[in-house]
């Protein structure tokens, strides 16, 4: 695998990250991310064939809560931080495509 991240990859990652970057930023990040990713390749020096991934340092499992309702926020409080609203809804520019993924 190449150690470098090219400009096209950076553009793709910026799109996935929903960051509308300027050309200057894309150039800057291409360089910086390349050197960071190159450094990260250091991990490949280690043989991890028989090592389990450790997502959590905690040996905890089965944490549940009972199915008991708790008070929700009053609608006004829920919407208090909304950048824009209409009636009791959050308002965003019209969604024309259906890109939902559930």
């Amino acid at each position, binding site marked *: 695998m190449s150690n470098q991240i090219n400009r096209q*990859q950076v553009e793709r990652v910026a799109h996935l990250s*929903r960051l509308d970057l300027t050309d200057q930023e894309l150039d800057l990040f291409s360089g910086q991310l390349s050197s960071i990713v190159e450094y990260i390749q250091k991990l490949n020096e280690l043989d991890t064939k028989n090592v389990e991934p450790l997502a959590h340092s905690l040996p905890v499992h089965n944490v549940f809560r009972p199915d008991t309702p708790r008070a929700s926020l009053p609608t006004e409080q829920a919407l208090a931080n909304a950048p824009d609203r209409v009636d009791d809804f959050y308002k965003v*520019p019209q969604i024309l495509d259906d890109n939902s993924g559930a």
Partner: protein
Amino acid sequence: MTDHLTVFKLKQDIAAGRVKSRDITQAILDRISRYDSAIGAYLSVFADKALEQAKAVDDKIAAGQPVGPLAGVPIAIKDNLCYTEGLTTCGSKILGNFKPPYNAHVVEKLLAADAVILGKTNLDEFAMGSSTENSGLQKTVNPWDKTRVPGGSSGGSAAAVAAGLCCAALGSDTGGSIRQPASFCGIVGLKPTYGRVSRYGLVAYGSSLDQIGPMTTCVKDAAILLQVLAGHDERDSTSVNTETAAVPDYLNALEQAVTGLKIAYVPQFIEQAEAPVRDAVKAALELYKSLGASLVEVRMPHFDYSIAAYYVIATAEASSNLARFDGCHYGYRSPSARDYVEVYSKSRAEGFGAEVKRRIMLGTFALSSGYYDAYYLKALKVRNLIRKDFTEAFAKADCLMMPVAPSTAFKIGEKTSDPLQMYLADIYTIAVNLAGVPGISIPCGFDSNRLPVGLQIIGPTFSEDKLLRIAAMFESKTDYHLQKPAL
């Protein structure tokens, strides 16, 4: 009145009626007005609310009512902790107007302990950084030398404690963000075991690494604060149940004698630090030895890979944690967004600073299809190897000692142009978060510029009581923690 202000002494004076919380709170607020414009520790100060809280405590005491363990003690909190008073910005423009409708678990704990909350301290945006230079809102300087950084990301909290602009503060530590600024500012900073303190209400950076902890002027104060913060919270699934990991009496633990202390160390970790740090840490080990401790040389073969693993894991989690800042439901929305996709991409581009963008991009890359196994999965495996290093070291000794940072506080702007160089300076602190173990930073000397040096003591999971005891042992024989910067 505000000289050598410790939580321990102040809470006793207040509870006994020798000092009024309102007076001390006012005195500290006065100091903040006088000095903070030059230091920049606070993003917001809640003077009226703090005085109101102080008065309530004074009234309770006057009425002979019982008060909490932090009664009337003025405390500052890092601005990535949700508090219904004022804003919670995370040092970011994207949350520049965010008013949380709820309190973080630790804020509830402070309030329940009758603490006075002075205000919110500056940080690297979303806690991403080691110098507080990445704050999108304000610069914070080191009180010991205003041309230098206070460290980060809890730089505001560290500077506030060091400058006497609060009695103690809360910070958060994902890769060293409590310990390193504590070291740079000459105070005590404790990162508890992952799961010891609830993260509910802490704005997440790297969820599997983040932990809230106290930043104080002395070890005893750290013990008092940890006692208030620690414990199970049913709102955080990763908060450890106290049935399996009981919270000990930390203050009482300090009174216990340390016998047969075994300290593990890795010689080259100490040797590779800059000379003033190296010498101070070596001297600290000598002091322990003179107090009866034995030193055990250990190897930690995977330690060197912790930065690489960390910058994959933390940024992967961050890329996901920060996806919610999109201008739809709260926070900043770009006025120039024409459709909903631009609401995302423009709000985020305008709202986030460069370091946050860089880490989001790096994390997104590490998780993206085709790269997951090579980066993210690989890093998780290396994380396991790093944890094994600690387990093996702790099989041979009670704790592990090393520097907190390779150098003392560096100059503002010195490392901003090369992010990788900045990351590499986190070498001593990051592995601790990857392993989930506790670590404490205590003052252990000064360099020739009279900049503080920190000693890091690391222990096995849930050994905070022992760490505090070991730290107190050093503190009782030294006066580094008593020295204050000239403002």
